[in-house]
């Protein structure tokens, strides 16, 4: 079953349209990265999937039912961007409250607190929590009731590198168990290894959608080759060049066949490069229309 099906979805507030003709599917056990600048329509897309907003045109289906239906909401976990929760409740009480609202047993809370590393702070008021701890509490909240679809809005904000790595490991684990994950972020570095596909939104339009290799092909960005060579005098020299993807292997073979080559480093176009590429295309279009 597909976790999310969005079909020619349009949405606007008043007279401004923030999403144009968005079509997107996310399958079970798939991790989709949703990227875009501020105001690109990421949060609106999230709200449409949550069923908090209704599309002006098109259809959004979640786990086989229209978005917003009680069944879809029960099997969905959501981590909002920068949620501060209730300062007067403890972490454990917060989770107990949300568990009751979701209709899941309160007994699973201890395990969740342990999973996000908040066991020691569980009985302290949320008022005393750091930003990272609140973020982890939000994550535990999103995991209540073993959701089959997880929506994470800027999940790594406020997390230190170790906690971020733990989060990605957790996402990996959930993916293996068949949970679909939508990861919404504008922090691109480090995400590449954990997403199956990336969707790049720009001014309310889907600019690109696909796996990283697919997007690299589509963008036709050049690869970076760095080689170290030893010249006859024994000095090490460093050469850098960018090559088209189709020429990459020829270059590598050529470099490898030269005995003076001591090292070769290959860097693929990163998500950030791709993001910049697709973003730039829109900027040019905008300039043309103006």
């Amino acid at each position, binding site marked *: 079953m597909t976790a999310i099906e969005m079909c020619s979805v349009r949405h606007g*507030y008043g007279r401004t349209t923030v999403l144009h003709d968005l079509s997107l599917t996310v399958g079970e056990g798939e991790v989709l990265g949703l990227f875009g600048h501020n105001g690109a329509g990421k949060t609106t897309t999230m*709200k449409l999937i*949550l*069923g*908090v*907003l209704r599309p002006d045109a098109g259809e959004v289906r979640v786990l086989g039912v229209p978005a917003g239906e*009680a*069944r879809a*909401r*029960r099997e*969905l976990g*959501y981590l*909002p*961007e*920068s*949620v*501060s*929760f*209730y300062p*007067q*409740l403890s972490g454990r009480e917060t989770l107990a*409250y*949300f568990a*009751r*609202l*979701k*209709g899941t047993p309160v007994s699973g809370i201890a395990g969740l607190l342990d999973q996000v590393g908040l066991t020691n702070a569980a009985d302290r008021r949320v008022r005393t929590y750091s930003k990272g701890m609140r973020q982890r509490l939000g994550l535990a*909240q999103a995991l209540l009731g073993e959701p089959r679809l997880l929506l994470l809005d800027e999940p790594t904000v406020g997390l230190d590198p170790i906690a971020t790595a733990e989060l990605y490991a957790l996402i990996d684990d959930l993916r293996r168990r068949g949970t679909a994950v939508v990861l919404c972020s504008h922090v691109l570095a480090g995400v590449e290894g954990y997403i199956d596909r990336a969707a790049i939104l720009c001014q309310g339009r889907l600019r690109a959608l696909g796996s990283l290799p697919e997007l690299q092909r589509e963008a036709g960005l050049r690869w970076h080759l760095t080689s170290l060579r030893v010249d006859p005098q024994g000095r090490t020299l460093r050469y850098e060049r960018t090559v088209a993807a189709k020429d990459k292997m020829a270059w590598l073979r050529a470099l490898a066949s030269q005995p003076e080559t001591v090292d070769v480093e290959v860097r693929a176009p990163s998500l950030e490069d791709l993001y910049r590429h697709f973003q730039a295309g829109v900027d040019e279009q905008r300039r043309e229309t103006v």
Partner: protein
Amino acid sequence: MTVLWSIAMKELRDALRNRWLLAISVLFAVLAVGIAWFGAAASGTVGFTNVPATMASLSTLATLLIPLIALMLAYDAIVGEDEAGTLLLLLSYPLGREQLLLGKFVGHGLILALATVAGFGAALVAILVGVDGVPTTVLVGAFARFAVSSMMLGWVFLAMAYVLSCRVREKSTAAGLALAVWFFFVLVFDWLLLALLVLSEGRFSPQSLPWVLLCSPTDLYRLINLSGFDAGAEITGVLALGRELPMPVWGLWGVLGLWVLLPLGLAGVLFRRRV
């Protein structure tokens, strides 16, 4: 139903934890006992005088205080959750918007009910124990009516607070508007009515004017609390109009009930439209 109750219980627990419930109860008790003892101090006597005079001064003071407490309790119910980011989260949960609003209402309503019963109940016991020869049945009846109507008056202003909270985008706006609502119903409405009476010089039909009192929940509340007595001296200002109101007491209760339900319904409609 369990979801609604969970939301209500959270509000109640919040009020217990930040000592709001305790503070309101103590305030009500001190107010009631103070008025019973010193209400007649202006006429040169200290100590419990009679039931009608006590109820009249008590309801006058409660008219100022209870709406203020209710508005303060509930003005940020929706807009506050929105600012904290929890509203979007709650809306993504399997619960209806009306369940969230009603849950808040039940919780806040329960806080006011408990504070009223505890505060005024304590005062009643103090008067019964401390004053000899007090007409017990009359006093208990008057206090019961006073407590229940105070509760309902509080609910009216809770519902009004939700209307504001569902309508505005910022907590500070809701707070400002809540103060305006309080000012209007507690002071301005009566001034306007008095001005109308004086300036019209009797040109309005005396049959229709008393009905205007039904447009103010605070005047309704005071009419209900004075209805048990034929104490003409206690009825002052615009409330004198109420004597000409051809409506039984249960009718006044009914209209006060409508004052709870209509704003609550309006808040529901506004909340549904909120994006």
